[in-house]
């Protein structure tokens, strides 16, 4: 492995262990995508083959069907403790992307996550976001506090230095832990290649198209690609200037869409 990937891996493991040592009830948000699957792998490394916290999947009911099948199969194989949660009320009331993409994301993801955090009393949620994904994520802290109603006070973030993270906060608040913050997209793929991390095959080309980023079926576009292997994906990324989330419709709604979603608790 390159020294760069080794350093990233070691730091992520350090972060996961800090979260486990310092936060109360902890869960890992597993979106089924490549990032949170790498996160799963890193957790196994951090805890020597064990995963001392549950994996959480916020199921919007609009996910690409293969994702759900892959989720259930992997969870079984790895013996993961899974928590699957839906915003049942919003779904019963007919929430869907036609009602507005941001409205839909807010209800089926942000609100669902918030319900689940409250229901299980999570003090720490481990999330696989990365700085290079989009602007507001680049400003994140590794341990990022979420206040009342999961609000992210991004203009007034605490200092984070020398590996001393935010681990003290009022009851009712929780911490989003971001072990992959300093990774970028190509690091993820190089790591998957090196470590032979199994990923869902939606990332590989079928009939000339593949998914680069996974989300809900109605709002996630495919990209033109012939990449059939991890190596070919890496080669493709080395030669692109198109952003990773270009296929994610909610990001394109307005220039600050993501910042606004995330302020209110979106992952």
């Amino acid at each position, binding site marked *: *492995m*390159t*020294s*760069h990937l*080794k*350093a990233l*891996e*070691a*730091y992520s*493991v*350090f972060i996961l*262990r*800090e979260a*486990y*040592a310092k936060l109360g009830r902890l869960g890992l948000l597993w979106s089924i995508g490549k990032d949170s699957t790498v996160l799963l792998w890193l957790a*196994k*490394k*951090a*805890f*020597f*083959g*064990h995963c*001392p916290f549950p994996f959480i999947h916020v199921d919007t009911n609009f996910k690409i069907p293969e994702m759900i099948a892959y989720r259930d199969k992997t969870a079984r194989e790895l013996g993961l403790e899974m928590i699957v949660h839906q915003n049942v009320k919003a779904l019963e009331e007919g929430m869907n992307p036609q009602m507005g993409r941001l409205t839909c994301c807010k209800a089926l993801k942000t609100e669902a996550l918030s319900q689940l955090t409250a229901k299980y009393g999570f003090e720490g949620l481990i999330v696989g976001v990365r*700085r*290079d994904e*989009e*602007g*507001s994520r*680049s*400003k994140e*802290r590794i341990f990022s506090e979420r206040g009342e109603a999961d609000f992210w006070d*991004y*203009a007034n*973030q*605490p*200092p*984070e*230095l*020398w*590996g*001393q993270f*935010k681990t*003290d*906060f*009022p009851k009712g608040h929780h911490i989003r832990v971001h072990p992959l913050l*300093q990774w*970028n997209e190509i690091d993820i793929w*190089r790591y998957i*290649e*090196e470590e032979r991390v199994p990923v869902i095959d939606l990332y590989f080309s079928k009939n000339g198209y593949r998914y680069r980023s996974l989300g809900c079926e109605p709002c996630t576009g495919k990209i033109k690609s012939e990449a059939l292997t991890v190596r070919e994906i890496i080669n493709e990324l080395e030669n*692109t*200037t*198109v*952003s990773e989330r*270009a296929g994610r419709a909610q990001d394109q709604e307005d*220039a*600050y869409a993501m*910042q606004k979603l995330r302020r209110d608790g979106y992952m």
Partner: protein
Amino acid sequence: MTENANDLGRNTLKLVVVGHVDHGKSTVIGRLLYDTDSVNQGLVEKVRAISAETGQPFEFAFLLDAFEEERKQGITIDTTQLRFKTKARDYVIIDAPGHKEFLKNMISGASDAEAAFLVVDAGRGVEEQSRRHAHTLSLLGVEQIALIVNKMDLVSYDEKVYNQITKGIQDYLLSLGLRLTLSIPLAALLGDNVASPSKNFPWHKGPTLLEALDALTKEAADDSGLRLPLQDVYKFDDRRILAGRIESGQVKVGDRIVINPGHKLTTVVSLAAWLERDIKEAAKAGESVGLIVEDEYYNRRGEVISLVESPPIVSDRFKASIFWMGKKPLIPKRRYKLKLATSETEAEITEINHLIDSDTLAEKPSPGQVGLNEVAAVEIALNRPIPLDLFVNHKATGRFVLQDGYDVVGGGIVASVEERPPVHAGFAKGVITARCELFEEYFYHLSESMVNKIKPPKPHYAVGDKVPLRGRSFLYPDSFDIVVFRDLVAIKIRQGEVADIVTFNDYAYAGLPLINGRGFGVLVHSEAEWLKAQEEFAAMTPENEGVLAGRWLDFNAYRHIPIGGDDFSV
């Protein structure tokens, strides 16, 4: 494992860009990314759209300032990290805000950088935050500082201006004990000297911005001797694993190690891993490891593993340089939480020796507190001794943060550790101390017809220590509370051990027997009586001393006076 030959030799350097607000930090970075085709098309278009919408020319700074407020106000609020690569290596470039208000964000960004670019506006020259940032970098341990004299177009590319600014920064860094790594002139907005040399300043024979990056040197792994702060002890299966990140030095199977505090000696049996292919014989600084050791001590987070011959200092008192980020000023005697590596403990600033003026680096007399963004030399006392090092010897175990309530309000580095002044007290937990005569033996000296006292050999007790419950002239219960009225401190003894030492303020009557600092029973049987006794002893005078003793104390409860003589010994 496949190794990509191209990648193998590449390394990543973490670089922070600092400077006074508006001197052009974001533009420098944005232009660098733009001129080297390092930004994705989507972002360039997004920024073009936002610039057009607001009727502004293309703002390179917008490539970094992602928050709406940042673009609207044209300032960087929070730090951003970007990846960038040259032919030689990869970079993480950290854009740190220059606004005074956001110094804590600058510190967050700069704290783990290996090198810094200090951007100074040629037209405005060195300003307050230019110096403050350089000063802060030195406290953060960033020693490699390069100067960018930006906006050369505003001073007609005048070499004299450039030289003068360079000289100023050079001298300032020298007084911090640092050397200026290199200096270049630039006009970021116009792309002068960014990716290619500029015709506008033919006098500049040095590197372009792009070349200057590659001229920085990668910090070598810290080889100052093994420091492995324990994060946790895992017992998920039949392995007992000490987990942590190696902060400096290396460790290998068979090493004789010592775990502090407590000076626990043992040997490394193996380095644990989940996957077979990750199991190895040795690991070095930066790696997150799990040690399996020969002896099963009681281990916990906060302990530090080192080689036997070079352990850290274990102390509860030291001198430090600190920088303050709290809205409320630092005040002596207030309780803060100190976090150093994986240790956490209560701390008190016992003395503010002086403030340091970032402009002149002169020492200013202490006004009794340290305000927002100020730097000070202080003395710190902790609740309990923890393993630590001088910052000059070991960076990671020589620096700490201070927390007030939930918030980090300060950072600091350990400057010196003093010999502990002798404690006359019998019980001590950091700054809380209490006198103790509980274990002194009384006897009646027949030939002299008087009561004498013998002092026991070990007069000091800390939390976790065992105390002698039975002597020749005393017998205490297994669990009781010692209330030392002279020092307003209570000591909780549980199963013969000191469980805690607290001030009366933090003490609540627990229904257990109360014994005073001399071993006499205190006649208190309820919370109300306890409050009353406290009140009366607080108001004690030499005149009513006898009355109070008669009302509240029972000499015979736990003590008796045997007849002894010269042979009476403990």
